[in-house]
């Protein structure tokens, strides 16, 4: 049997990984898109109940989280510039800010969910099913599913950012090989875009 080394074709093609990332983002958009479809159908059917249930959510917490995410999106966008300008320290600083803001977002979310749990509101909870109307049950069901799935994406994004920071630090990601940072940025912005729509749909119904 002849022996030969399979030469890996991992030649660096930034354009290919960018398209790959965009295609992946499309799948994520449709994933959340379905939830938005479900949301709009049930909101259409249970208009008043959705208004009533949304009153339980705190607009201020939602707004604070929106601001946090927008700023974190800007810092990671800026970090792609600083990487191109070969400023390693600033790149680490900017991605670090994104990381911290992402964690703050999750902490806020934790307290927000916690206060719902204290009121006996969680998916399939007794309080929910016995005291609230069908529309309100659906609203809170969707609230937990959609913000929960979004939080899961934040966590994945944070893990990605940690990896990128490590690779920037060790010099594996640099101006000519920026795809990993660029793509993590794209992913983070996607999470941002989804929140941009979640915020008015859940917190701004009056």
């Amino acid at each position, binding site marked *: 049997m002849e022996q030969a080394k399979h030469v890996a074709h991992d030649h660096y093609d930034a*354009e290919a990984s960018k398209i790959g990332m965009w295609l992946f983002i499309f799948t994520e958009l449709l994933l959340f898109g379905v939830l938005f479809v479900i949301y709009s159908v049930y909101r259409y059917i249970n208009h008043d109940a959705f208004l009533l249930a949304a009153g339980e959510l705190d607009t201020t917490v939602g*707004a604070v989280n929106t601001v946090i995410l927008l700023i974190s999106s800007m810092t990671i966008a800026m970090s792609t510039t600083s990487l191109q*300008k070969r400023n390693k320290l600033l790149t680490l600083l900017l991605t670090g800010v994104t990381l911290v803001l992402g964690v703050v977002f999750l902490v806020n979310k934790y307290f927000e969910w916690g206060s719902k749990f204290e009121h006996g509101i969680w998916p399939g909870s007794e309080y929910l099913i016995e005291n609230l109307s069908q529309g309100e049950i659906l609203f809170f069901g969707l609230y937990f599913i959609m913000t929960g799935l979004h939080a899961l994406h934040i966590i994945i994004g944070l893990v990605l950012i940690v990896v990128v920071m490590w690779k920037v630090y060790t010099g594996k990601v640099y101006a000519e090989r920026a795809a990993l940072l660029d793509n993590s940025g794209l992913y983070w912005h996607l999470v941002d875009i989804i929140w*941009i729509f979640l915020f008015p749909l859940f917190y701004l119904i*009056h």
Partner: protein
Amino acid sequence: MENEKHHIVPYRLYLFVLVALLALTFLSIAITEIDLGSLTVAGALVLASIKAYLVLKYFMHLKYDKPYIVSMVVFVFAIFIVTVIVTFLDYLYR
């Protein structure tokens, strides 16, 4: 296939976009405080769409990308909207 040269976006631009995004956020909060009936939702969604557009165009660099990536993004959003419309053909007329 050479790797295309990166377009370096100035920090300033990102800051402007952020300011615009924050302004739109507060605008949407303000708008939904006023009772505009069914227009409230429409207003909030339009503002959210503008915000998403800004994020896509500047933060996600679509402004500097090749046209075919832009057309893919447009196509995906279009097919999603069509899907929503078709689904509502059922619910609106049931």
